[in-house]
């Protein structure tokens, strides 16, 4: 296996199958840990395709002459190519192809919403089920990470240029990989003690094991990326200071402030932001009872919100022993922003949903602990700015849901630590960084991407920004990038 070719039946005869034969193959389900068992542990839910399952699934790909899947991918992975190589029994070739396009395939193979991206536009989805692109990506990526010895170290000619990346989440790590490939010396500044950003503090172990993220980080470090932890930009250093020390800077700090509901009782003991709850459990390892960092283990838990972070929180609460873990969402099932797979997994694990329900107050006991949340029922009215039907309160529908813990997972906003100490950096009225089409900010040589530009979005969109920013930073360092926003800012500035 370690030479990157397949064993057994698969390796014997890998002549391409005729299209008709390919069409007959049914999509292989992802092997999963039993729902009742996994609702009480933190081991990964999805177990991954076996080699045999992967090869059969690869044969389902029709190798379209016009592959829509590539357009559907925010980082433009050459999907048909790596699947073809896999189908031919050349896993190493498939891995080389995949890694050439995507710096963190072990991560995206697990957490990407393929159903709204590559798999949504897969031709086979028109008449049945799409090729399981995400599952195949994960299989190839996991193979690559356990066979690092068969990959030649990239050895680009050093450019002599230094780039600072602020934040080691998906955008920062992707940009680091891409810039290193082009010969630039990258230093990542991370505020926490460990690298990975939301991949290690936010996304739980059962969806993205932390040793997988660590291996992706290790791969970058082996390629020459330097990581400087405990460095809060805006405090330990400022952005203008880094700009002086480096030839270019990429700001990828995420949207780091939790949003609360702003209802009475929100400071009672037992109310967490999802950021705090998940960071305690994931980064600080509080799911392990021997951990030095404590976390409350609610018996009846209400998680407010309907996105992936809410799903991660409500499923985490189940695993930490909640007899009842309920997702409270103000719109209906149709509007849930979370991935379908996460919603299904949550339901299988015994999570209950209260749709069209909005909290109006957190109730507490005489000792300051949460005792319940008062909610109102909602109905859907006219579509709002987001295009989704706006929830409207039903008068007189108040009720109390007794609970001992509340997790608020209704989104995040920008953290002003960095921007408030960078006077020349233009931000929107929401505090997000303004960029031009090249992802360059109003400071020449400073680029930005991910949630600090978009507001809370997905891992893969952040990675797409990281990849694009790296290409543009490379162009900037070679002196072939225009910078309209920076030029405009300079023109607007008073003469010195």
């Amino acid at each position, binding site marked *: 296996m370690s030479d990157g070719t397949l064993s057994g039946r698969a390796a014997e005869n890998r002549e391409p199958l005729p299209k008709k034969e390919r069409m007959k193959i049914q999509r292989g389900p992802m092997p999963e840990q039993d729902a009742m068992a996994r609702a009480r542990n933190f081991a990964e839910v999805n177990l991954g395709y076996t080699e045999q399952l992967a090869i059969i699934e690869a044969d389902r790909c029709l190798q379209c002459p016009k592959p829509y899947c590539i357009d559907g991918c925010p980082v433009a992975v050459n999907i048909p190519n790596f699947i073809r190589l896999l189908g031919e029994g050349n896993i190493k070739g498939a891995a080389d192809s995949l890694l050439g396009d995507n710096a963190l395939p072990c991560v995206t193979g697990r957490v990407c919403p393929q159903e709204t991206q590559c798999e949504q536009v897969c031709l086979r989805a028109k008449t049945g089920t799409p090729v399981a692109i995400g599952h195949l990506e994960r299989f190839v990526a996991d193979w690559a990470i356990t066979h690092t010895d068969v990959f030649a170290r990239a050895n680009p000619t050093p450019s002599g240029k230094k780039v600072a990346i602020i934040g080691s989440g998906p955008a920062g790590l992707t940009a680091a990989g891409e810039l290193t490939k082009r010969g630039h010396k990258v230093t990542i500044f991370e505020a926490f003690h460990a690298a990975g950003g939301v991949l290690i503090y936010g996304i739980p172990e059962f969806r993205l094991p932390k040793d997988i993220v660590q291996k992706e980080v290790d791969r970058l470090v082996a390629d020459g990326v330097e990581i400087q932890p405990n460095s*809060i930009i805006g405090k330990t250093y400022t952005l203008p200071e880094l700009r002086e020390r480096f030839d270019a800077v990429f700001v990828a700090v995420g949207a780091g402030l939790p949003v609360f509901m702003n209802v009475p009782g929100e400071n009672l003991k037992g109310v967490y932001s999802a950021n705090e709850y998940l960071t305690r459990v994931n980064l*600080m390892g509080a799911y392990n009872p021997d951990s*030095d960092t404590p976390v409350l283990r609610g018996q009846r838990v209400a998680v407010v919100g309907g996105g992936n972070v809410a799903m991660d929180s409500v499923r985490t609460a189940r695993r930490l022993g909640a007899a009842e873990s309920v997702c409270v969402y103000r719109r209906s099932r149709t509007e849930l922003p979370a991935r379908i797979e996460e919603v299904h997994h949550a339901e299988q694990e015994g999570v209950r949903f209260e749709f069209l329900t909005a909290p109006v107050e957190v109730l507490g006991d005489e000792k300051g602990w949460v005792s319940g949340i008062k909610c109102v029922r909602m109905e859907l009215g006219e579509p709002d700015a987001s295009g989704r039907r706006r929830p409207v309160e039903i008068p007189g529908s108040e009720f109390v849901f007794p609970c001992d813990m509340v997790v608020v997972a209704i989104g995040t906003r920008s953290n002003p630590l960095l921007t408030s100490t960078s006077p020349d950096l233009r931000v929107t009225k929401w505090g997000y960084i303004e960029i031009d089409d090249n992802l360059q900010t109003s400071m020449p040589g400073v680029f930005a991407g991910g949630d600090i530009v978009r507001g809370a979005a997905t891992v893969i969109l952040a990675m797409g920004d990281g990849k694009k920013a790296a290409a543009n930073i490379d162009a900037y360092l070679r002196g072939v990038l225009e910078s309209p926003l920076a030029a405009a800012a300079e023109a607007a500035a008073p003469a010195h």
Partner: protein
Amino acid sequence: MHPIVARAQLSPNVTRLVVEAPRIAEIRRPGQFVIVRRGPGAERIPLTIADVDRSAGTITLVIQAIGKSTNELTALQVGDAITDIAGPLGNPTELLESGHAVCVGGGVGTAVVYPIAQALAANGVKVTSVIGGRSKEWVICEDELRAAGEVIVCTDDGSYGRPGFVTEALRDLCEAGGIDEVFAVGPVPMMRACSELTRPYGIKTTVSLNSIMIDGTGMCGGCRVSIDGKSQYACCDGPEFDGHKVDFRQLADRLNTYREFEQAALERWQAAHAEAHR
């Protein structure tokens, strides 16, 4: 890694560690803190920077051993190292330029108020420090504070200085008048008492809050406190706030969130510690 270059026992449960952290030493201003993580698996805890030595590249941390994490930190010796120190965090103290400031320190809070007193004195402000402890052996930083001005020491049992609580000495100072600002740092009941005491006198009173934190950058929201009925984050909006606007009851309540857990962790640690030293 941040090696410990000096260590001193200041009171039965308060230890001073001088630690290498050149960048933080270079840029820290009074009132700021760091988040410390002793090593792999350890908690992240906020600690005020009590002092710095820029030329040596060191910062001074004064730590009260209460739970497992603080006991482990104070057990470190010269030559040991702390794995992670992040900072400087929080807003620096807004320092008076002139006038008379009273700096009140209770217990380990004395080490937090010390850099404020030092900076005020450097600004030319007249500083009177009021510090206290249960008895003589619990009084810390007295000599350091004397360099900033007059020091009134109070002990609960009267074994040293003036008998009674720091609030009684503060009341006398308020009565005497001429105070422009009071800084009060210590246990929550002491900060509340000082703030209530100065309120009728209309003396601006600043307190430094020690909420539970993880990241120290505003990301977790765990340190939120009610200031004038509005939630603010001690880590990035503070740590210093107007004592007349702080909801101290809520603060004390939230600080108790993990009390049972902390007690159990400490007992486990003490048992293991006793075992190791047998």
